[in-house]
């Protein structure tokens, strides 16, 4: 799948949609292998106001109360270089960035 550009559907939490000034789901162009990292890289390039809100500056560590879901799997603890399922890479299913339920 490397070398081509994939159109990846992405959903982000309400507050981040407000910050990025987008409504609902959107599509990102992701070059090369579709991994957690490549999707987040593309997301931050297109919406730089989100830098630091999903993963920390410099370390790129996932923020503790956010989760990454794809194809009904929680991929939050997987390597950022994990290739996402074909259904996400092909645009059939979205990549979900979810705010954890915390605080009641």
């Amino acid at each position, binding site marked *: 799948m490397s070398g081509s550009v994939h159109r990846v559907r992405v959903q982000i939490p309400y507050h981040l949609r407000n910050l990025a000034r987008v409504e609902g789901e959107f599509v990102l162009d992701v070059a090369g292998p579709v991994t957690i990292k490549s999707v987040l890289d593309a997301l931050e390039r297109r919406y*730089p106001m989100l830098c630091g*809100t*999903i993963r920390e500056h410099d370390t790129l560590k996932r*923020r503790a*109360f956010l989760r990454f879901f794809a194809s009904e799997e929680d991929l939050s603890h997987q390597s950022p270089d994990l290739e996402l399922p074909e259904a996400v890479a092909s645009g059939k299913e979205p990549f979900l960035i979810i705010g*954890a339920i915390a605080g009641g």
Partner: protein
Amino acid sequence: MSKVRVLVGTRKGAFILSSDGKRENWDVSGPFFAGWEIYHMKGSPVNPERVYVSQTSGWFGQLFQASDDGGKTWFQPGVKGEDAGAPQWPPVKSNRFVYDSSDETGKPLTTHQWYDGTQHPWEFKRVWHVEPSLTDPNTVYAGVEDAAIFKSTDGGANWSEMPGLRGHGTGPKWQPGAGGMCLHTIILDPKNPDRIFIAISAAGAFRTDDGGKTWKPINKGLRSQFIPDQDAEVGHCVHHVAMNPQRPNTLFMQKHWDVMRSDDAGDSWTEVSGNLPTDFGFVIDVNSNEPETVYVVPIKSDSEHFPLDGKLRVYRSKSGGNEWEELAKGLPEKDCYVNVLRDAMAVDNLDKCGVYFGTTGGQVYVSPDGGDTWKAIVHDLPAVLSVEVQTIP
């Protein structure tokens, strides 16, 4: 006629309360950044239309916002929106607060005391306080948790730590208070540009006389029950410090317990709690026209963070402390169990000094007559974290 603009940070967004110099009728705008914790917002004294905001969230971390039109519209410094043309790269860093541990300019990332007495590494959590420069609208300081001070000279687009403070040799003895190990007070000396005062819970107050390169603890005279050594240089839980700019060597402090005063820029402190019904509290401020007139809001105790007997009261001293009078006119007489947090009191610069404070119950009170009478501007905001006021000619 002059106007006032009250900047209110709450647990769930920011609000701006505006009035003319009479301070009788108010317009309320907001919430801005709805749903986010707004620890502090403050306007530039040089350009009042420039307002800086600390926006934070347990989920999404720290953001930094600014306005160039007095809060009508907002932007993240340095961020270009998608509609500004080509995508922006490298990324924006207006919310990048990274401790400086570089060989060239920084200090090693040391440890501080944790709640259980063990040592714990410094970890950035949020910006508690923003302090715009007195001379340059693009220069602004940020007091953060875990305690450190950062500076931006480009309007908040990029931040650098002033590492001399965190790297002070006493760092391993600093410890978090109940709210975290926060640097919550920054006071710029209007007569000496190299002098800055800061305060940390729970480390104490510090001062630099060389523009932030080196810092010294200024805690002599403070007594804290929770420190075994009563003459300890650091470890004191200072809740807030206030200064009247006309008299920058005189400082007033609300400590965990005790109201304190210094007349030598913090080199020594004396207690001025006097006849206060309780000297626990968080806020303290000084009348803008009368440098010996001081305001506090006594809170029952460190175990019960609400006013005595359910009566919300401001206390005023016109003698620089020790002799305090109760101010009650217009404030709740019963069943009031709110708190007033450390950055939630401010004064304006009008001829008849206005005094403002906000509560964890969501009320913001104003006294347009120096404390004689009070009125709630709003009753039902989210819990108020901070109040600042701008006097606009």
